[in-house]
């Protein structure tokens, strides 16, 4: 079936099997490999992207469900070579160790700030409950989001 999805501001259109997951459309069809597949069971959040501006887990969505929608991936966050304030905050606050969870963490954190512009530390921890860091670097991830909220 044919799907048309605007990804990072660009119109894309491809013939896909109905069972194609959104994350595979992003990684394999479009070759945008910043979005990771971690647990593949909607637990870890490594595959988090924005669908019409809201964080979703792209391993638990069909590309067909995103037909006609706007998707933003980690590649769409920087503008003209300048990192998004959230990416900048992760860099400045050592919010990443191995980096595997980072694209999903950044996407989830930006969505969180869109819904709550001035979250407390507790609200950030609860808001990011759907994203796991196997390095257990949560402390600096939370500090990064707090710093980004102040920007």
């Amino acid at each position, binding site marked *: 079936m044919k799907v048309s999805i605007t990804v990072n501001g660009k119109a894309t259109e491809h013939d896909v099997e109905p069972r194609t997951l959104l994350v595979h459309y992003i990684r394999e069809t479009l070759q945008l490999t910043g979005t990771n597949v971690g647990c593949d069971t909607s637990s870890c959040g490594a595959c988090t992207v924005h669908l019409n501006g809201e964080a*979703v887990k792209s391993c638990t969505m069909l590309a067909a469900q995103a037909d006609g929608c706007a998707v933003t991936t980690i590649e769409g966050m920087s503008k003209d070579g300048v990192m998004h304030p959230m990416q900048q905050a992760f860099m400045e606050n050592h919010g990443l160790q191995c980096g595997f969870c980072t694209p999903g963490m950044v996407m989830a954190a930006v969505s969180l700030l869109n819904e709550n512009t001035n979250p407390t530390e507790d609200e950030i921890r609860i808001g990011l409950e759907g994203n796991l860091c196997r390095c257990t670097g949560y402390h600096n991830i939370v500090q990064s989001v707090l710093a980004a909220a102040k920007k």
Partner: protein
Amino acid sequence: MIPAQFDLKRASSAAEAISLIGEYGDEAKLLAGGHSLIPLMKLRLAQPSMLIDIGRITDLSYIKDAGNHISIGALTRHMDVEKSDIVKQHVPLLAHAASHVGDAQVRHRGTIGGSLAHADSASDLPATTLALGATYVVQGPNGQREIAAKDFYKGFLESALAPDEMLVEIRVPKTLGGWSFQKFNRRAQDWAIVGVAAWRNGKDSGVALVNMGSTPILATSVSAALASGASIAEAAELAAAEAEPQSDLNASSEYRTHLAKVLVRRALEESTK
């Protein structure tokens, strides 16, 4: 993991979806947010050959104040239930329970109707709407009928929905008095090992249990004891009277029974403040 092959058709109205499930019968499943169904399909625990995508039926996404109850369209997302001023004001227990479903990403996609129709006793909203005395409106080829939440859950992932019916609306009585939601789990986003949804207004109360059997459990003995003047501690001892808790990797049946008594006591104490 990629699901087995299937075809997909989009329905633009409830009537069209019902006609399509009538046409494809047992081979078809309705796809709303997909956050219960797609994981099952990825694990090949479900292999429908036809998915009927109802996720774009926007007129089934609404929250209305309907006098003595609120009406929620089946395709309303958890995040919209959680943030709704109408739900927060009139059925705060439901708004709170919705905020405990999965995580933010899941709540951006998952729908209340999908969660209830999936009929998983480990999910938060079946037990919550059961405690609240909700009524589900289902639509089939011959029109709509109402099913009380207490008559809806028939067995593990089994409901009173006929194969050619779909859930279209959830009606929840406005809550008077106090309420509480207790969810015991080891990791933030997990299903409850045991959960309790409760409200209390004088002698009246509603208490339901999450993950204490193959269906969500209405703890009628607890409410009966409270109505006849029992103390909270006495009533909480009856928490598992209707339950048949299973043993699994997370907890033994005995431990679940213990948890239910403790959590029901806490829930009643919080509801009585």
